[in-house]
């Protein structure tokens, strides 16, 4: 019998998996034991886009040189590329539809029609308005915001031209995108075009299909995701470092526990406001609870953590386990990454599961739709439901005692400030330390958890290996939360885990060796930080020149594929773990893993072993250092006065 893989490296998770088992409650962990991945689907060697299929085209047995085609004659390359492109379309659509909701709320906020919302960050408003070519001189804040909202909304349906934010990328990258025909027009247009091209009997050239996948992915990273990040910052404030805490131990037995889960920070922001309302406080007391304890889950957690220090209950694979504690009165879910299994787990306890988005209902859950016009009233109504539910706990509460402090909130603007101060804000110190070799390079490690990989294990192994080798790590999403639980998001982690060069820099600046940049849409902040490094100078002219790499070792969602594709199309070498969705076709895989380096100067790789994957990233970083001529730490010449005079 092969030894069973541990389900998690996190003690709180393991304790609650055990409790769920004893209580006969099904969770993602037990369901995964029963349901193994389909061997044909795992390679994406099947097509079901027309009713002559589904056509399943498993790999031929060794020695069988048979060409694999579907009933219509579609080759395995076409089928695998179509499946891949559709994943990108779904991922880009998810981020961008989130963005659309944000823009629509932003417009209502600018018009004064959104209850409880305001423009909190005028500096960011002015900066983004300038990006959109809006005149800001002498104009009222609301007036600028209205024009910005309308222009941002136009980015979705634009039929011609290019997305405004492409202009923020390094000039060389912009030229390359134009040359390759991958500069996106409107966000929606690129996504719809994938759906058209992958319909039966349309685009049947894998390279051409994947070119459109890049175009839609760029429309996500440099469009939808970036718009979400920026407009959320304007409404809720650009994140600055904040002390928070993470893991299931943030739940409190004597409090009304409300978990906010999902992705859009709109309602969660108002739940934070409403939880401080005197009426809500009074009701909480009269229910016999010590307070209302808001806690986040998945990317909603990242959003409210970064802006308010609200504790994080956990990441993707911990969502059902939060309910298994028996301590959660109510969980709100909006869109993305919320498992339908939550409903059955909630039913085993007193927990009320509330769906809040007009785009996502769960059969059996209570639906209370969020609309910005009366958002604060909705938030209060939800909290009142939670308070009323507090006396209904029917089971003994069990909350694991694991919780860990962490620092989050490193927007690219804040990194700029931290590196140089108010009067000399700059990425120069970072570039200098990369050039002198104290920092070897930068890695973006992002993405989900996947039950097929021991929970959090690949994130932590990879990131520890990277920082030990002096690679500064930028992280978002569930990867960031894994780091939080492991204690990597505190300044003290530099001394404990980082190589001496990176540790020195972290100590001098007062930052952790792993920087939490936010939620999944905030991967756009990584693009901006990397662009600032290019534009600061000394590390080449394009993102692909940087000693940098990306990874998602525990990815599971289609959004992750879209993110990876826009990292790669932006010139960043990106390694995924766990599984890879083009193994059904060697040609398609070779195109993404090798030919992309020629085309985009950035390419994909797949390596399920996180340490090997980290080594691939480090090798790539070293290759880039060599190309830049900074492969050896340079001796620094300190000028004394006599040398200075000689220069004059």
């Amino acid at each position, binding site marked *: 019998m092969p030894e069973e893989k541990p389900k998690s490296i996190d003690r709180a998770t393991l304790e609650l998996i055990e409790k769920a088992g004893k209580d006969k409650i099904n969770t993602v962990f037990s369901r995964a034991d029963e349901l193994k991945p389909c061997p044909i689907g795992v390679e994406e060697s099947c097509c079901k886009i027309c009713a002559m299929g589904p056509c399943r085209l498993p790999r031929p047995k060794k020695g069988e040189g048979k060409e694999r085609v579907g009933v219509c004659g579609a080759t395995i390359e076409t089928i695998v590329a179509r499946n891949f492109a559709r994943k990108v379309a779904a991922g880009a659509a998810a981020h961008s539809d989130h963005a659309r909701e944000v823009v629509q709320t932003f417009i209502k906020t600018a018009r004064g029609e959104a209850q409880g919302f305001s423009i909190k960050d005028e*500096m960011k408003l*002015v900066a983004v308005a300038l990006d959109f070519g809006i005149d800001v001189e002498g104009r009222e804040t609301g007036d600028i915001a209205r024009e910005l909202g309308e222009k941002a909304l136009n980015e979705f349906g634009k039929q011609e031209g290019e997305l405004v934010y492409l202009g923020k990328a390094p000039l060389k990258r912009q030229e390359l995108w134009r040359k390759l025909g991958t500069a996106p027009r409107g966000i929606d247009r690129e996504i719809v075009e994938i759906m058209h091209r992958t319909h039966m009997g349309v685009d049947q050239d894998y390279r051409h299909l994947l070119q459109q996948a890049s175009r839609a992915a760029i429309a996500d990273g440099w469009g939808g995701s970036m718009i979400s990040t920026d407009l959320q910052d304007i409404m809720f404030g650009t994140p600055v470092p904040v002390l928070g805490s993470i893991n299931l131990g943030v739940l409190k037995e004597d409090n009304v526990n409300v978990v906010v889960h999902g992705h859009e920070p709109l309602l969660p922001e108002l739940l934070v406001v409403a939880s401080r309302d005197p009426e809500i406080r009074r009701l909480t007391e009269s229910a016999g609870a010590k307070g209302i304890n808001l806690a986040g889950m998945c990317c909603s957690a990242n959003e409210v953590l970064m802006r308010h220090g609200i504790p994080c209950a956990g990441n993707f694979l911990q969502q059902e386990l939060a309910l298994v504690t028996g301590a959660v009165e109510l969980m709100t879910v909006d869109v993305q990454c919320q498992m339908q299994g939550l409903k059955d787990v909630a039913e085993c306890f007193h927990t009320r599961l509330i769906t809040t988005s007009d785009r996502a209902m769960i059969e059996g859950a209570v639906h209370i739709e969020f609309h910005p016009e009366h958002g604060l009233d909705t938030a209060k109504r939800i909290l009142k439901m939670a308070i009323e539910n507090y006396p209904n706990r029917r089971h003994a509460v069990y909350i694991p005692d694991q919780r860990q402090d962490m620092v989050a909130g490193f927007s690219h603007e804040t990194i700029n400030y931290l590196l140089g101060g108010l009067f000399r804000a700059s990425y120069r110190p970072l570039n200098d330390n990369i050039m002198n070799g104290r920092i070897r390079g930068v890695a973006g490690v992002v993405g989900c958890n996947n039950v097929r990989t021991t929970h959090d294990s690949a994130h932590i192994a990879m990131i520890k290996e990277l920082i030990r080798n002096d690679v500064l790590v930028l992280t978002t999403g569930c990867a960031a939360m894994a780091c939080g639980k492991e204690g990597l998001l505190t*300044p003290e982690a530099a001394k404990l885990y980082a190589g001496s060069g990176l540790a020195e820099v972290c*100590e001098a600046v007062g930052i952790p060796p792993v920087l939490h940049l936010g939620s999944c849409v905030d991967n756009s902040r990584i693009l901006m930080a990397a662009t600032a490094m*290019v534009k600061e100078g000394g590390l080449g002219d394009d993102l692909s020149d940087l000693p940098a790499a990306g990874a998602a070792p525990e990815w599971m969602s289609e959004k992750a594929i879209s993110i990876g594709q826009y990292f790669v199309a932006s010139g960043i070498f990106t390694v995924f773990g766990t599984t890879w969705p083009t193994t059904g076709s060697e040609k398609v895989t070779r195109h993404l893993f090798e030919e992309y380096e020629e085309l985009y100067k950035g390419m994909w790789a797949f390596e399920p072993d996180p340490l090997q994957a980290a080594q691939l990233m480090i090798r790539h970083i070293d290759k880039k250092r060599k190309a830049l001529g900074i492969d050896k730490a340079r*001796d620094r010449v300190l000028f004394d006065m006599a040398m200075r005079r000689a220069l004059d």
Partner: protein
Amino acid sequence: MPDYQYEEKEDFSGRKVKVLGPTYEEGKPEEREDWRSKLGGREDALRYIRTAMRYWYSKEWYGSEKRKQEA
């Protein structure tokens, strides 16, 4: 004056030098420090955008992209 701590480290030539140790305060912060609140009104913000965020908002600045010789 706080008592600064010094540590002995090697410089690039391998010479031992004394460098200033960590200067951050012990313990956890009570409040978050929002650097943006140090900026005054719109004028201040615009000035900051054009200097600190020159990568995108200053006409004179294009870092290495401005160089004649490619890196």
